[in-house]
């Protein structure tokens, strides 16, 4: 019985301790930061890499004396990729572990739920993976920061490139629930702003297994480009079917970075050949900043980094803001973040916009070649970020109506 009790204590220590980095300093003062996300399951590819990015940052910070003389320690928690556990774990990190920074979560639903917690407890909150459009608009609060390009930024950057380089006539095909509707309407709004023409729109209901009934309408509208807003197994299935109907060769294809899990790309390389996406990181990008980051990441973990690279910069921004504020007080640290810039991040220069706490940074457009995302263009941050819309509906007045051009 005593043995069981002892093991229970050990288990609690293991879970509460989470992924605490090995001490690099002999400092007695410690400041804890929280790492929340999908640590097991299909989305582990993001949650695990978020942790690794934070570990790399913490190792570098501690090697230089920590933050305000404190050794930094990470406490990691798995949110099961669901809002309710994410909220519970966020409260545990803040109230029990006393973290001064919370990074996470991975799914937008979980991140938005956690935003209520970080607002309530006035905790600095960085998002480096989720991309819903509401976090810097209707859900925004003063302790929230993001260096993940959201769906509006991705749509703005993609739309300009598509209209300029790929073709003005675009058909939007989306999965007919919140995520697909959100991405589709952001893209339509952005494309029409830059003079592109939406020649057709269709939403496939959830649970669609056979997408071919929509292919006739797509072919009839004769687009230059097919913009696809799907995710998960729907994306895999759709691409396979488009390919078998010859449509991946007939049309140029584009989508946002949530379209496919990065780790799935090698399995569906042939149908995805030529697909254009906007993103902020690829280990195959020869950009010197990305290669420098990837080299450090590889040296520590023996594998390439992925789009969760922003978690590294999130920790670095927070550390710089705390040093600037000379305090861990969340109000002071939040204010110190505003307008702050960092050079030589994985994407070069990043600056935090004061109005909505979104990081302005250049992004790259990638095209799939041989199962790898290879860069084809650079989009400047100011061309994609869009105007600040704190408290406003980002798609107010939106309509799916097709505006035909002659």
């Amino acid at each position, binding site marked *: 019985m005593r043995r069981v009790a002892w093991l229970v204590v050990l288990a609690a220590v293991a879970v509460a301790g989470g992924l605490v980095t090995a001490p690099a300093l002999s400092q007695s003062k410690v400041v804890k930061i929280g790492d929340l996300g999908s640590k097991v399951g299909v989305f582990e590819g993001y949650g695990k890499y978020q942790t690794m990015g934070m570990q790399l940052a913490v190792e570098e910070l501690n090697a230089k004396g920590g933050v305000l003389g404190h050794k930094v320690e990470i406490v990691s928690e798995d949110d099961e990729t669901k809002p309710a556990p994410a909220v519970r774990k966020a409260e545990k990190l803040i109230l029990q572990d006393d973290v001064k920074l919370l990074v996470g979560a991975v799914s937008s639903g979980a991140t938005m*739920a956690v935003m209520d917690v970080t607002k309530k407890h006035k905790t600095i909150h960085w998002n480096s993976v989720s991309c819903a459009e509401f976090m810097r608009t209707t859900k925004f609060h003063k302790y929230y920061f993001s260096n993940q390009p959201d769906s509006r930024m991705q749509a703005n950057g993609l739309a300009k490139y598509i209209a300029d380089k790929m073709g003005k006539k675009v058909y939007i095909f989306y999965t007919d629930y*919140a995520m697909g509707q959100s991405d589709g309407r952001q893209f339509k709004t952005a494309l029409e702003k830059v003079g592109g023409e939406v020649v057709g729109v269709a939403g496939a209901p959830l649970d669609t297994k056979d997408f071919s009934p929509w292919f006739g309408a797509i072919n009839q509208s004769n687009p230059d480009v097919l913009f696809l807003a799907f995710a998960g197994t729907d994306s895999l299935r759709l691409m396979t079917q488009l390919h078998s109907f010859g449509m991946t060769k007939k049309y140029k294809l584009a989508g946002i970075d949530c379209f496919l899990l990065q780790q799935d790309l090698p399995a569906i390389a042939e149908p995805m050949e030529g697909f254009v996406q906007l993103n902020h990181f690829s280990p195959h990008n020869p950009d010197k900043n990305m290669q420098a980051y990837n080299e450090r990441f590889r040296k520590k973990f023996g594998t390439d980094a992925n789009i969760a690279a922003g978690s590294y910069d999130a920790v670095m921004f927070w550390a710089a803001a705390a040093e600037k504020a000379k305090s861990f007080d969340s109000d002071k640290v939040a204010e110190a973040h505003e307008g702050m810039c960092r050079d030589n991040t994985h994407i070069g220069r990043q600056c935090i916009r004061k109005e909505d706490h979104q990081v302005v940074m250049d992004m790259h457009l990638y095209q799939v070649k041989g199962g790898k995302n290879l860069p084809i263009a650079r989009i400047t941050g100011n061309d994609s970020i869009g105007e600040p819309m704190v408290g406003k509906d980002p798609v107010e007045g939106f309509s799916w109506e097709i505006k035909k051009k002659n």
Partner: protein
Amino acid sequence: MIAARVAGALLGMIFLTAPAAAHHTGVYTPKDNAITENFKQVKFSAQAGKFDVALRLYDAGPLRAEMQARATALPEGLEARTRAALLARDAAEAERGLATFFVALARDLALEADRQLAAGAAPAAVGPRFLEAIWRYYNLADFVIGQRDARASVAMRLAYDDAETLARPASGAPDAARLRASFGRLAQILANVIQTTTPFVRRDS
């Protein structure tokens, strides 16, 4: 009006994690049982570099007991090599061993579902129950599987998605024959995953 629309959209985004949409995005996670809970404790301890804690949790927990109880259906030496990896402080190798175990558990569940359907069990009861159990285990192994064999990971998720649709038809009862075929496909994919991804010596079975 705008607030109501935005609230609706927010609810929609959050609903993304509910089962109906969640399977499509791979977000769905069934509730833990004692085995998966023990697995997470071991995994997180090992990832934190606390291998002494991981080993104690593994030695005394239901995960190892289940591996030992099912040893004849697993690749030979799987449990011993998983333990050896924890002793050697090799978190990645330990995770690979545990992933193989979960794939084997999921395979056996698919075979059992097929057997029960063949014996005349109601597909509306068998289908969802076994699929939930299969995903509980496979979900924990997918990332490790995908890193070694992306095609196998994608094939499994697509086959699972198909089985889900067959088990919960929009109208009427599930078709037992098609559901059996679907479970058979899952079992075959999972058996192939074990064959192609395990570094361990295989046992013929």
